[in-house]
């Protein structure tokens, strides 16, 4: 009898791998936006470098809809076994629970890292008579409601910037919302006069548009001649950040592994070069930093939204 038990233990010991090394099977990468978009392109660039540091392959799964809320919700509800991670955007994950009855909150995620910091910019058509931001604000004040400002949204980074501006300054304009990149076309075609857009999106139509200011703390390397909003006299900063997350209950050891591999990629100069080639505003931040930022920013966003809703 004892011999049998010993044999069984031996067999089990051989068959069941003792403490299988994580990760030992493909990892699901959930992308909340369509294939071919900025989020997808950036993730694919990372994939190239991930494959150098880890045996586990990424399995891309696109769960689109509701401005990303569907995909983010999937990540929040996924099994926290370390085999499902995904891309995330802020301020989307802060606004969606407030405005859209989303299935998650910012506390449902473990933050792996931040990879992109895409500041908003104020842009006009090349043929526009506005040469700087002050002229825009002056025109708006003198002609309330006449100026048409394009935003992506609602409930997006651009929309948030718009609300921020209106809460701080007198800016009586008519907002017009777009789903995405058609915003550029509307500006180029003259349907709107001004747009608040992403730096990344504006870059691809640069020969048709004039960027008048950037809502960041410092000027961008891509557009060294463009002043910040603060330099132009307006205290507004607005960014869309992209990063990677996992379900909140993931084991600490697995989260540490993911953070360490992503750190290696983020600090790889080759990766940085690829990001610049692809026109992505690359800014790598560790998971812990990203998490701190999200929590702090979340408070600000919640307050801004609450005030607006009154």
């Amino acid at each position, binding site marked *: 009898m004892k011999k049998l038990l010993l044999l069984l233990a031996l067999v089990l010991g051989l068959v069941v791998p003792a403490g299988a090394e994580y990760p030992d099977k493909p990892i699901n990468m959930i992308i909340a936006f369509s294939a071919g978009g900025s989020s997808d392109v950036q993730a694919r660039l990372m994939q*190239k470098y991930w494959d150098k540091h880890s045996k586990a392959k990424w399995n891309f799964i696109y769960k689109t809809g509701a401005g990303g809320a569907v995909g983010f919700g999937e990540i929040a509800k996924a099994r926290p076994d370390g085999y499902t991670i995904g891309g995330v955007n802020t301020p989307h994950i802060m606004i969606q629970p407030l405005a859209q009855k989303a299935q998650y909150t910012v506390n449902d995620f473990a933050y792996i890292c931040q990879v992109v910091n895409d500041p908003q910019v104020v842009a006009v058509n090349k043929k526009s008579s506005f040469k700087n931001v002050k002229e825009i604000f002056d025109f708006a004040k003198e002609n309330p409601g006449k100026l048409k400002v394009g935003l992506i949204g609602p409930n997006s980074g651009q929309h948030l910037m718009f609300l921020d501006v209106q809460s701080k300054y007198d800016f009586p304009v008519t907002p017009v919302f777009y789903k995405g990149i058609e915003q550029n076309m509307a500006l180029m075609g003259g349907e709107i006069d001004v747009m608040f857009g992403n730096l990344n999106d504006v870059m691809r139509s640069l020969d048709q548009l004039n960027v008048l200011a950037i809502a960041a703390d410092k000027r961008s390397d891509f557009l060294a001649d463009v002043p910040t909003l603060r330099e132009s006299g307006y205290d507004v900063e607005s960014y869309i950040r992209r990063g990677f997350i996992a379900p909140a209950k993931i084991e600490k050891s697995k989260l540490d592994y993911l953070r360490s591999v992503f750190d290696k990629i983020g600090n790889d100069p080759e990766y940085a070069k690829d990001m610049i080639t692809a026109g992505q505003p690359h800014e790598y931040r560790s998971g812990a930093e990203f998490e701190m930022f999200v929590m702090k920013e979340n408070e600000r966003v919640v307050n801004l939204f609450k005030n607006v809703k009154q």
Partner: protein
Amino acid sequence: MLENILQALPHLVDPFNLLLMIGGLAGGIIIGALPGLTATMGVALMVPATFSLDAIPGLLMLGAIYVGAIYGGANAACLICTPGTPSSVATTFDAWPLCQKGRADVGLNTSLLSSSFGGIIGTLLLLFLAAPLARFALNFGGPENLWLCLFGLSTIAAMSTGNLIKGLLSGALGLLVATIGIDPHTAYPRFTFGTYALVQGVEVIPAMIGLFSISQVLVLIGSHKPHIAEYQPTPGVFWKVLKKLTRDCKMILLRSSLIGGLVGMLPGAGGEIASIIAYNESKRWDKEPSRYGTGVEEGVAASESANNAVIGGALIPMFTLGIPGSAVAAVILGALMAKGIQPGFKVFTVSGDLTYAFITSQFVVNLLMIPVGFILARFMAKLLAIRLTFVAIGIVVLSVIGSYAIRNSMLDVGVALAFGGIGYLCSRSGLDTGTMALGIILGPMIEENLGKCFQLAKSEGSVLNVFANSPIALFLIVMTLLSVISPYFLNKKRKIKTVVPGQDMDAPAPVGEDPAWKDFLAVFFTMLVIAAFAAQTSELDELSFLFPLCLLVFLTAGSVLLFGRGFRRMKRWGLFPDEGGERPQARKVIVMAAGALLYALAIMPLGFYPATALFLFGMSYYQNSAAPSRLNRLGMALVVTGLLCALVWFGFTYLLSVPTPASILFEAG
């Protein structure tokens, strides 16, 4: 420009590139032909492969897949009345009747040659007129896009001559379905019937898979036919079709291709709208419009040339403005930008060698498509030789995995099945699935652009100012009005022809007019939908509510009118007049529907392949009542199960790495 083109030629004769193009074409055609797999998915799946290739070969391959997939949809449209991609909806109108008449080869070859022609015209537009056309496209804003969609929608009126009320009701129902999900203006969830799942809205493609594929499965299984259609291949059909197209269809092909190229240029408007508008215009200017829909090559030519011309059109703003004209163009743009190619008007100079290599490759691809497509079409036509039962069962499996594969959501499978039921109901009650699909496709765009017009109006002061402000908008308004009025005249002409003096007023119901019970069934269904939606409206705020409210009012009015008509018909010809057609085998239909439902439910606990195997085995065994013996039934069931599971695994899991639904219990999907 000539030097650029000459410089591009060496890339095209490179054997590796040629291999990529042919492989891309073949793969694209197969993906396009499978209902559920779309061009977008096909191209997106191959984008990672381009990271290891150089920019030019990678781009050439993606372009080939795009062209193949958009053409490929016509194969399924013809053979099983299911648009393989949304762009082929209008192709089903005439290609399927051709198939039923035993002339599937005519349908297949016509779509092949028309697609090739359309693709070449689209590429010519891209090559010579990219810059001016892109600047023209910039003039399409909210109001213009709105009128374009309304124009597309107005084709419903033209398509349903004789049954206008039901056509309009079907379209309105489709529009109503499209309002489920997040409101485009307030971003608040709407009509979700209490479930979060519906916040994602109803995706167009699973709805179409249901409306066309699955409902067709139910119709076919209920019929008494042993095969989908009797196939009588005509020798030398390719040359006959070519002659017919060059002799009779030159104007149609040219006009449809131009429509396709122009519509393709507009972001948001794609192959579905272009092919339907092209089809409708062909019909309108034809000497005998009533023959459209009975199986004429002209209808297929119009639809297929338009949807392939869309490709060239969609690439125009992609290259020149960085704004993709279609979902596939968006994917291609992503791949380009990852390689550091910056879109803009300078793309013809700065990245000139890449751009011209790609454009010239599109010419080559559209020509190569003819032999490649021809061989594949011959192969696919053999499908008609398989017993209908097994084809129907196979389609169900493909529909399930196809709907799942779109965004890895079992909800979409549920949507497909639900719409399968709805589609079957439509076929029994005279409602039209094509117009319903059109409503689902155009609904979001109409509502978005309508809202945008209202937003713009706030700065203009007057709403009217916004709606009819530009020459383009005015032109589209006129076209829409024409579109709505012309079928009324067509109908009058038809009625004049058919009324013979002294005709017996007690004659039996004319063939083609719906009997009363069909009208009542349609009314009943519509009222159910109205009630379900109306119950949900209490929690909406005003702006979200406007568009659905208009639809609900319209539907109610339409139902009342239809009820009146049904009542009149009942008085004249009785509730169930003898139609002379065959009655469907109800038992088979019910079993198939129930089986499909259980199959989908079984996927959650059991996983995809076990559930599929069970479904295939059970259904094949049960539905194969024509088999000679019990043993034969068992054997056939095993063969079908084994073969289809292997094919699906090979194609989806091995080749395409499409994730299959994982079970909750087991790890293996």
